[in-house]
C-alpha cells in the first residue's frame, strides 16, 4: 500500500498515535503497559469517535479517497474465495479500472464487479485511478449477462471519481456504454447488490449502480458530480475554499443519501475509518452481502425486476401543483 496519507483534520490523532507508538515500543522492552499508554489509547479512541461522528462533507470526501482505504481487490481477497477474474470486453481491450470475476462467498456463488483505483503509483496508472473507459462497462455488461445466464447474483463495488474523461473514452462512446449498462441492469434477471465502498462519482458510479439493494460505507460519498467539478462550474473555480462548499451543498454523504431514499443502508466503518481496520470493514461488508443474498433468496425474476423498478421509480422530489402534494423519495418529504 502507499504510505499512509495524512488527512489534514487528523493532526492531533497523528500526534497521539506517534506518541503511543513510542511508548508502546518502550514498554514492550519493559514488559508492562503503563497507565500512560492506557490513558492515551482511551483518549485516541475518544478523539477518533468524536471526529468521525462529525466529519464535514469535504472531510468525508478526503476519507473516501484515502490511499490506504481498502479497494475492490482488497475486499475480494478478504471477503471471497476462489476469485476467478474474467478479462476483456471482446471488442477493444481489458479495462483495469473495472474488475469482474466469479467468486465464492460461503456456500454462494457470485459474479463480482468493482472499480479498482490502485494503491501504488504503478497500479494507479494501470487502473487510470479508477476511471473506467467504455470497454470497462462493456466488460461489466458481459459479466452481468453471464451471471444472468447461470443464475448467479451480481455484487457491484463502486469506487470511482467518475468515468474517464478523455478523447479515446469519448470516441469509443462512454456515454453510450453507461446508457447501455443502465438499461441492462434495470432489467437484468438476477439479483444485483451494490455498495459504494469509496467514491461514488456520478455516471461512472451509477454505471454499475442499479441494484435490488444499494448500500454505502459510512464514509463513502455518492454524488451527481465531483465537488471539484461542481465548484468549478457553480463557484467558477475549484479552490481550497470552494471545494468544501460544493461538497456540503451536494449532500453527498451516506447519511444524506439514506435520508434522500437513494440507498437502503449505511454500513458502519471501524473507528477512524475503513483504512484503520480493513479486516473489520471487510467483515461488515461480508455480513451485509450474506444478509442481502439470504433476504433476496432465489426470486421469481419478473417479480425481482418489478421490485427493482419500483425502488428507483419513487426517487426524486417534486410538487404537484393544484393538489398541493409533494412527492419525495426517502424521508426528506417537505
Amino acid at each position, binding site marked *: 500500500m502507499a504510505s499512509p496519507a495524512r488527512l489534514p483534520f487528523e493532526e492531533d490523532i497523528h500526534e497521539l498515535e506517534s506518541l503511543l507508538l513510542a511508548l508502546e515500543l518502550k514498554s514492550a522492552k519493559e514488559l508492562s503497559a503503563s497507565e500512560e499508554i492506557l490513558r492515551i489509547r482511551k483518549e485516541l479512541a475518544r478523539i477518533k469517535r468524536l471526529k468521525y461522528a462529525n466529519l464535514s462533507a469535504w472531510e468525508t470526501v478526503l476519507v473516501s479517497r484515502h490511499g490506504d482505504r481498502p479497494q475492490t481487490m482488497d475486499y475480494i481477497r478478504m471477503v471471497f474465495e476462489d476469485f476467478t477474474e474474467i478479462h476483456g470486453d471482446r471488442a477493444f481491450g481489458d479495462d483495469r479500472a473495472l474488475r469482474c470475476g466469479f467468486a465464492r462467498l460461503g456456500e454462494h456463488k457470485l459474479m463480482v464487479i468493482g472499480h479498482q483505483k490502485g494503491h501504488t503509483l504503478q497500479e494507479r496508472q494501470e487502473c487510470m485511478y479508477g476511471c473506467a473507459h467504455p470497454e470497462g462497462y462493456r466488460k461489466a455488461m458481459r459479466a452481468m449477462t453471464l451471471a444472468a445466464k447461470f443464475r448467479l447474483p451480481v455484487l457491484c463495488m463502486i469506487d470511482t471519481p*467518475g*468515468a*474517464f*474523461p*478523455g*478523447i479515446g*473514452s*469519448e470516441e*469509443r*462512446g*462512454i*456515454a*453510450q456504454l*453507461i*446508457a*447501455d449498462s*443502465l*438499461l441492462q441492469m*434495470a*432489467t437484468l434477471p438476477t439479483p444485483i447488490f451494490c455498495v459504494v465502498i469509496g467514491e461514488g462519482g*456520478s*455516471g461512472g458510479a*451509477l454505471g454499475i*449502480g*442499479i441494484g435490488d439493494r444499494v448500500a454505502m460505507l459510512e464514509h463513502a460519498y455518492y*454524488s*451527481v*458530480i*465531483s465537488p471539484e*467539478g*461542481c465548484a*468549478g*462550474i*457553480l463557484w467558477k473555480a475549484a479552490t481550497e475554499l470552494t471545494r468544501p*462548499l460544493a461538497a456540503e*451543498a*451536494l*449532500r*453527498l454523504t451516506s447519511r*444524506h*443519501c439514506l435520508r*434522500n431514499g*437513494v440507498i437502503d443502508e449505511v454500513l458502519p466503518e471501524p473507528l477512524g475509518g475503513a483504512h484503520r481496520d480493513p479486516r473489520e470493514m471487510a467483515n461488515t461488508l461480508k455480513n451485509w452481502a450474506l444478509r442481502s443474498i439470504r433476504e433476496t433468496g432465489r426470486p421469481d425474476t419478473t417479480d425481482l425486476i418489478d421490485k*427493482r*423498478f419500483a425502488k*428507483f*421509480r419513487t*426517487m*426524486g*422530489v*417534486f410538487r*404537484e*401543483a*393544484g393538489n398541493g402534494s*409533494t*412527492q*419525495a*423519495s426517502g424521508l*426528506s418529504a*417537505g
Partner: protein
Amino acid sequence: MTQPQRQPIEPDSGRAVSGRPKRGVPEGLWLKCPGCKATVFRKDSEDSFNICPECQYHFYLPAEARIRQMLDEESFEEWDSHLMPCDPLEFKDRIPYKDRLESEQARTRMPDAAVTGRGYIRGRQVVVGITDFAFMAGSMGSVVGEKLCRAVEAATRLRLPLIIISGSGGGARMQEGILSLMQMAKVSAALGRFGKAGGLYISVLTNPTMGGVAASFALQGDITLAEPGALIGFAGKRTIWNTVRLELPEGFQTSEFLLQHGFVDRIVHRRDLRTEVARLIDYCAR
C-alpha cells in the same frame, strides 16, 4: 451531470446583434450565425424553424416551436404540466437554487426543462418528450425525470411509439444532487420495460446533448437520430482538458463525429425530421 462539465453554454442562437436574448431566442431583427458568421435576418431563420438560410446551421429551437415543427397542427396534448420543481437539498451556490428556479421560470415561462405529451406526426399517434435547453441548460432534475418517466409509462400502456428530443448541456442537474443522478436510473428503468414490451423509441439528439442525459435516455433509443452539427458527448471540453491536457480534434463530439464512430443511426436535417420519424414508425409498426 456525471463528469464535471463545460460551463453551461448559452443557447447558440441567443446572441442577438441587438436586444437582449430571451429564452435563447434573439429579440433583435438580426442575428449572427455561428456557422457561417453571416448576419441573418431573424425572420428568415424563424420561418425555417431557426435554421440559417445561408449555411443551414441549426439554431436552438424552443420546445414549443419544436412541437409546432414536429407534430401535426393543433394535435399536441400536453401532460403533467402541473409538476413543479422543489429544492430538496436546499442547494445554494452563489445563488440559491430556489431563486434560480424562480428566475428561470419567469424567463422561460416553463415550470422546468421538459415538455411531454401526445400528438400526431403525419397522422401517426406518438408520445413525445422534449428537453428545452433554455431552462437551466436543459438539465435533468426530479421534474424532468418524472415527466419523462410518466411519458414512457404512458407510451407503454397506450402501445404508442415514443419520441424524445434531447437538448441538454447540463446533463443531470447539480442542484438536485444525487436525486438528479437517480433520474438517469429511473428513466432508464422505465425505458427498459417499454423496450421489453415491444415499444419503439426514437431518440433525437439536438445541440447540445451532454453528460448524464447523453449517458441515459438520449442514447437508449432503438433508433438514434441527430440534427447536424450538434454537440453530443459525455465529458465537456474543459473536464477533458483538466484531465488529459489535450486539445480536442476538430469536430470532436459533433453529430458527424458520432456518426463516424458508430453511435448515431442518421443525421437528419430539421426540415426532414417529421418525414424521417414517420417513415421509421411505419417500418417498426407492430
